[in-house]
């Protein structure tokens, strides 16, 4: 192990080894990250809540467990959780005024899994309100700034998780992805983000945006770290009826498999109008790299790609319109002052408690489901969803992995798209279809343009995260894009 590498630059694998070799303790490691958060996060705003006291206690417990031997791999390693995962006794806001006072009496399954593995929680990361957004400008707690360019967005909705990992404020973070909310901010922040297969990670305690699309996953600096994180996150949970009861492999085992002969498909629809040429060029470079590594490249077609954005913006808001009905000011969360009757209580609590984008999606969703419009919108969108899935089924008859850009452009400036919802929605054009089809996808850094990172996306068939992580890890063994870090002004 190289002593010159700072703690915050080390991967999970290195940190885990370092803890076992007693180069440092979990308490030291945890304090190091807490200090960095304290020093640096005022410029990024990537955390909503920092749980310093609890983190130090958890680190002490982890140190004892490490000393006793037999501790799990992530024991003692600090991680950050997106503020969409319920944490017992710790405010879980979903970045909404509506839940600014909400302290859950239970943990999300994902949070429990990390606690059981001995990981230390640093805090809760910022996000777009209720995971609705692609820029993190929709947070009640203010936008997160991209560590590579603080005048630009980090992407969303998991902007806080991506920015905190990019800025080395956390070695890894949890996140969720409904239409690209892990992969798009990972791309914009130059980190690795994995959206697993729908049903791979329990949604219990993960606050719902669009239930049939939401899926939790990790944001890390490397594919290997993503494998370690997924080992902890994945697994059957009978509390989530949509969770699949399928054995969880050790995702680190297959990382070093050869990708000689791996069949990679390049969808022509991902390289058309709207794609920033610099992104296109970086992705072309990645394709060449894969060819060099022995992969077999071919062009494929996903003909319904263009329809996936409109279909998503019917289905997701429709589900959200029902999922968010529980925030009514009656049992918990925000309640307006002095309601004069029930109607007033509902209207003002929701009117004052939700931000504009959330209201927009609730209205769109309620409209799409209303009598007389259901067939034209919701049913039609579900038909498109099946066509999108069919596109992938066809493609996977011929290729193992589909490769393309994660986003059409690099991180954009604050305010650039926030007044134009349609432009903002097109940010997710390459990521949304994997959610509609329930497929796993990973974004990893593959270059940069004008100092901003570019993300490469790999998508594979359901429950083949091993293949994705293997292909991503092999890429990272031969390239150094993932090792680039934004300028660091910290003293620690």
């Amino acid at each position, binding site marked *: 192990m190289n002593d010159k590498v700072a703690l915050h630059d080390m991967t999970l694998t290195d940190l885990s080894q370092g803890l076992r070799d007693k180069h440092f303790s979990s308490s030291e490691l945890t304090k190091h990250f807490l200090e960095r958060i304290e020093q640096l996060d005022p410029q990024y705003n990537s955390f909503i809540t920092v749980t310093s006291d609890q983190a130090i206690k958890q680190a002490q417990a982890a140190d004892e467990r490490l000393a006793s031997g037999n501790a799990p791999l992530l024991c003692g390693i600090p991680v950050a959780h997106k503020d969409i995962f319920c944490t017992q006794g710790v405010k879980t806001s979903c970045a909404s005024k509506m839940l600014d006072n909400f302290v859950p009496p239970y943990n999300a399954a994902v949070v429990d899994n990390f606690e059981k593995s001995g990981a230390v929680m640093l805090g809760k990361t910022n996000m777009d309100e209720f995971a609705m957004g692609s820029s993190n400008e929709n947070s009640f707690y203010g936008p997160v700034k991209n560590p590579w360019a603080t005048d630009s967005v980090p992407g969303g909705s998991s902007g806080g998780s991506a920015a905190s990992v990019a800025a080395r404020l956390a070695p890894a973070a949890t996140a969720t992805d409904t239409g690209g909310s892990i992969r798009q901010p990972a791309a914009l922040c130059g980190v690795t983000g994995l959206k697993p297969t729908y049903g791979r990670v329990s949604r219990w305690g993960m606050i719902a945006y669009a239930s049939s699309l939401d899926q939790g996953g990790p944001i890390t600096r490397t594919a290997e770290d993503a494998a370690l994180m997924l080992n902890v996150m994945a697994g059957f949970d009978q*509390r989530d009826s949509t969770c699949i009861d399928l054995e969880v492999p050790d995702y680190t085992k297959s990382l070093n498999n050869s990708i000689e002969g791996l069949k990679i498909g390049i969808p022509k629809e991902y390289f058309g109008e709207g794609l920033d040429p610099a992104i296109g060029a970086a992705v072309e470079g990645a394709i060449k790299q894969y060819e060099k590594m022995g992969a077999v490249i071919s062009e494929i077609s996903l003909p319904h790609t263009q329809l996936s954005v409109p279909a998503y913006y019917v289905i997701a808001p429709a589900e959200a319109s*029902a999922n968010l009905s529980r925030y009514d000011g009656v049992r918990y969360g925000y309640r307006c002052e002095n309601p004069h009757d029930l109607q007033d209580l509902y209207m003002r609590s929701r009117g004052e408690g939700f931000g504009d984008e959330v209201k927009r999606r609730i209205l769109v969703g309620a409209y799409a489901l209303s009598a007389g419009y259901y067939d034209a919108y919701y049913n039609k969108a579900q038909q498109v969803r099946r066509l999108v899935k069919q596109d992938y089924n066809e493609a996977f008859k011929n290729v193992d992995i589909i490769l393309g850009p994660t986003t059409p452009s690099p991180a954009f400036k604050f305010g650039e798209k926030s007044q134009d919802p349609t432009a903002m929605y097109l940010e997710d054009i390459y990521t949304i279809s994997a959610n509609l089809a329930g497929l796993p996808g990973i974004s990893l850094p593959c270059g940069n343009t004008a100092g901003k990172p570019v993300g490469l996306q790999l998508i594979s068939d359901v429950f083949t995260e091993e293949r994705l992580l293997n292909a991503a890890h092999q890429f990272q063994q031969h390239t150094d894009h993932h090792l680039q870090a934004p300028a660091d002004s910290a003293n620690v």
Partner: protein
Amino acid sequence: MQWETVIGLEVHVQLATKTKIFSGASTAFGAEPNTQACAIDLAMPGTLPVPNEEAFRYAIMFGLAIDAEIAQRSVFDRKNYFYPDLPKGYQTTQLDRPIVGAGNMEIQLSSGKTKTIRIHHAHLEEDAGKSLHEDFQGMSGIDLNRAGTPLIEIVSEPDMSNSEEAVAFAKKLHALVSSLGICDGEMSQGSMRFDVNISVRPKGQTELGTRTETKNLNSFRFMERAIALEVERQIDLIEDGGTVRQETRLYDAEKHASRSMRSKEEANDYRYFPCPDLLPVVFDEDYIEAVRATLPELPEARRDRYIEQYALSSYDAETLSGDRELSAYFEAVTQDCGDAKLAANWIMGELSASLNSAELKLANSPLNATRLAGLILRIKDGSISGKIAKQVFEIMWASNQSADEVIEAEGLKQVSDTGELAAMVDTVIANSAKQVENYRSADADKRPKMMGFFVGQIMKASKGQANPKAVNDILIEKLNKLL
């Protein structure tokens, strides 16, 4: 004009599962408010529903009992509306793919005829909580104990044409779900609630009139009265030149009046869509057949068996077979005493009347089947008369004693000894010179009627313990000697 009425029912039946349909919270009735509502029932953020298999099994049992198709794949939908006792802001229910398809049920009418009522479908759904509008000084209290209790909603076709048929159907459903053991049948606790769709039309017209829905009736008597009231209201309205509005109405049993709750125009757009938190539920043939194998004897089969095996009248058989507890009681008494007819008479007569006046349920009867059978045995073997038996019954009702103990302790054993009875008869004849004279001078065909006086005197003298048949025989013999 002659009018005819068309009635259809929607019946909410609370399933007697131990826990809720999508959570592990208890469904027991009567707990302190909000003590049986877990994070899922409270719709806390991030919680998810997990289906309760028992609820599905109960729904399938119902479906099999009405000879309905069971959907091998059924889907849950969300019905969206805001109300404080609906924590998620939507009810999880089934719209297009209910678990139980079309079936039918036969009802018996007082005319002796039977009629088949078709059932459109039955679906599974969750109950809402309760809003408490009293005792909170201008505010409402919310009790979420009931939220998430499993229900099946049974929807009939509009096959009933008067309140008798509707009530017969409702009672039949009650008997069926109680017999199946899928519902506790406690109407007063809201375990069964009826929505009645009513329309009227000129006799002979095929087109249906505009219907109204009277919601949430929870007793057969209220249902009968509410139907009568609504039919009268609609006919009066039309005869006065008005038209019936499609609307939902509420019946106030205390005032025997109904009022409009909301019109069709004011009805919610529920924005139904498939619930993305629940996958379609799939049952294979084997599962359904395994459930079929667990079905208990159904009331109709039991009724037929009572007629066949015990030679009961169809009225007695119908009454005793309808309720599982009652039929079990009846069969236990019959087995112990060996006389189904006497058992039926005593259960439907004395026992039922005593339970009613004490406002007790059969389960809490002070007199169990064994003790009642003991009483009937003494009637059968002539130890006591039917009249004395009623006295014995009353003492048994208020004590733990067996029939034999009561008879012994009170000295109520019937006197059948002819010597003893002959002495009593002689005394009565000797003390009734006038009546004896009348008897002698009367026409022969009038004499049997006049016997009553003497029998009465003897029963009185014996404190009711004289064996009436023996008394009769001795009396005739002695009086005839005087002729």
